[in-house]
């Protein structure tokens, strides 16, 4: 069960009116793998993520998630699938009329048979896992800072212990220490649960820290590979991205950590 692919996209084409975002795009995520998605602003990273989780219908192509073809699946089957993944949207997308604790409880109430007390315990654990202070539990989203909203969104995404975690720019808006902690958290959860993660990010440090492979969105398609193999790509955007000043700094930082981290 540990092997195989959890997400398989073939020949994907998405468009809004005349604007084509993806054209003949192929890409896949293996079970237990952390796949990073990078690309310039507006190249369609968020749209790709939304297509995979079934929020946007592609114009053409197949999207197979956990063995089910999303493009052919009836709505209730999609709902059943949804409990097997967690999503952190780019700006949190918390339910504004619920407190943080209630936000995390919502999917648990809907999809599990856990007792009320166990739910409360698990809410506390998820809040702490996401790095939120305990006082945040009873606050409403409007009373939180941007970074805290993101953590609350992560806690909700983790509520059902999903098989796949979708993260849209999770570390944007977190302080560097929090971002590094978040990277560690994703790594440790991923190892313990064989979690597969699809993470859209601009954060080069977290790219080095958590991603096994990286997909680069260029010209409506993706180039997939490890960071090392991508660095050998001749494409000027990729070169600029990984070999620019920030890319080199992140690589150096990851290089130091590699000796201890990759045991």
């Amino acid at each position, binding site marked *: 069960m540990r092997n195989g692919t959890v997400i398989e996209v073939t020949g994907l084409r998405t468009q809004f009116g005349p604007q084509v975002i993806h054209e003949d795009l192929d890409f896949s995520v293996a079970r237990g793998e952390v796949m990073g998605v990078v690309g310039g602003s507006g190249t369609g990273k968020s749209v790709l993520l939304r297509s995979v989780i079934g929020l946007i219908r592609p114009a053409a192509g197949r999207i197979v998630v956990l063995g089910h073809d999303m493009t052919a699946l009836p709505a209730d089957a999609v709902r059943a699938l949804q*409990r097997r993944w967690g999503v952190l949207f780019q700006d949190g997308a918390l339910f*504004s*009329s619920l*407190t943080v*604790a209630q936000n995390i409880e919502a999917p*648990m109430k809907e*999809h*599990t*048979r*856990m*007792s009320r*007390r*166990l739910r*409360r*315990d*698990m*809410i*506390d*654990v*998820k*809040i*702490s*896992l996401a790095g939120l202070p*305990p*006082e*945040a*539990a*009873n606050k*409403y*989203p*409007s009373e939180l800072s941007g970074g805290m909203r993101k953590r609350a969104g992560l806690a909700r995404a*983790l509520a*059902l*212990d999903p098989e796949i975690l979708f993260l849209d720019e999770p570390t944007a808006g977190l302080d560097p220490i929090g971002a590094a902690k978040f990277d560690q958290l994703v790594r*440790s*959860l991923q*190892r*313990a*649960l064989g979690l597969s993660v699809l993470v859209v990010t601009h954060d080069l440090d977290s790219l080095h820290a958590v991603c096994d492979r990286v997909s680069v969105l260029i010209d409506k398609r993706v180039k997939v590979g490890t960071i090392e193999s991508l660095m050998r790509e001749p494409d000027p955007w990729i070169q600029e991205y990984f070999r620019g000043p920030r890319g080199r700094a992140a690589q150096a930082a990851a290089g130091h950590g590699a000796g201890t981290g990759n045991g």
Partner: protein
Amino acid sequence: MAAPAPRLDARLDGACLVVALGGRWTTQAIAGEDAALAALEPAGAMQARIELGEIDELDTTGAWLVYRTARELRRRGLEVDLSGGDQEQRDLIDTVAAHDVPCPGPPPPVNPLVTLLLRLGKATVEVLAEARDLVNFLGHTTVVLLRSLARPRSIRLTSLVSHMEQAGLNALPIVGLMSFLIGMVLAYQGADQLARFGAQIFTVNLVGYGVLREMGILLTAILVAGRSGSAFTAQIGTMKVNEEIDALRTIGLDPMEVLVIPRVLALMLTLPLLTFYADMLGLLGGAVIALVELDISFLQFARQLSSGVTLWSFWIGIIKAPVFAFIIAMVGCFEGLMVSRSAESVGRRTTAAVVEAIFLVIVLDALASILFSNLGI
């Protein structure tokens, strides 16, 4: 995917409580096991051993239950150790243990009577504070409006015209239809009652007074409050949520001048025109019914109207229009600016804007009635 459900087996082995877990300990699978584990009785045991060897699948919920069971048994003075399980599972249990940080529970529910009193008190204070802020805003708007009128160049023409179009031109169909129907209703009622005295012709007076003095302006104002006042709140409120208002301030623009004044002015200019239009259609509705039901021709209707209804009645309706417009627009903008950072408050404030505007309009109308009747016009 049909892995076995969680299995739980507790037995006493001498002085050692053995808790053997097996199967699938995951968020989806766990149901009653939580209570069973919480109810574990050490029954004189000195040690406990939790066996993880048979567990097929473990996620944070399962790990939490293992950890919590161990924690509770330790609290009762037992020596607890975990046996079996692979490294990943033990790491997960350690991870969960490191995150055992209880959050404060939700605030406890209080006595309903106390809650009621509290809410009443809070609402009273809020209403008073809001009334004060509204009066404050009224003054502010008046000052900025007068200043803008003194310097007409500072008025944003594009915005003004666009709001006039939305609040006025686009409201023509609904305002017209409504007034026409109201004129008809008044005429019907009048015809029924007055015919008993043989005074059918006074139906014209009833329609004339009713439409010109009260119905035309009042119903138009209520409709505009519902249509445009709420739109003002929603527009400005959404901008507030998106921090656009702050952005305006930082680039040196005054939200009063850019957002509030064009709306207030647009409504003050359009409501009198809309009222005139509503008056005409209301009279037309009355005239149609008079013709059909009472055989009063349009010419007769007009003659009776000019002799029976003073021109003042018409002017009283029109004079009230800009005042009502000012109130509606001001309340709409005020509520929009009071929106807090959540999208939910946009909805709440929009409702509040409509209710307040209609309430104030009716109060003002009542005051105006008293004033005019004392003045004898």
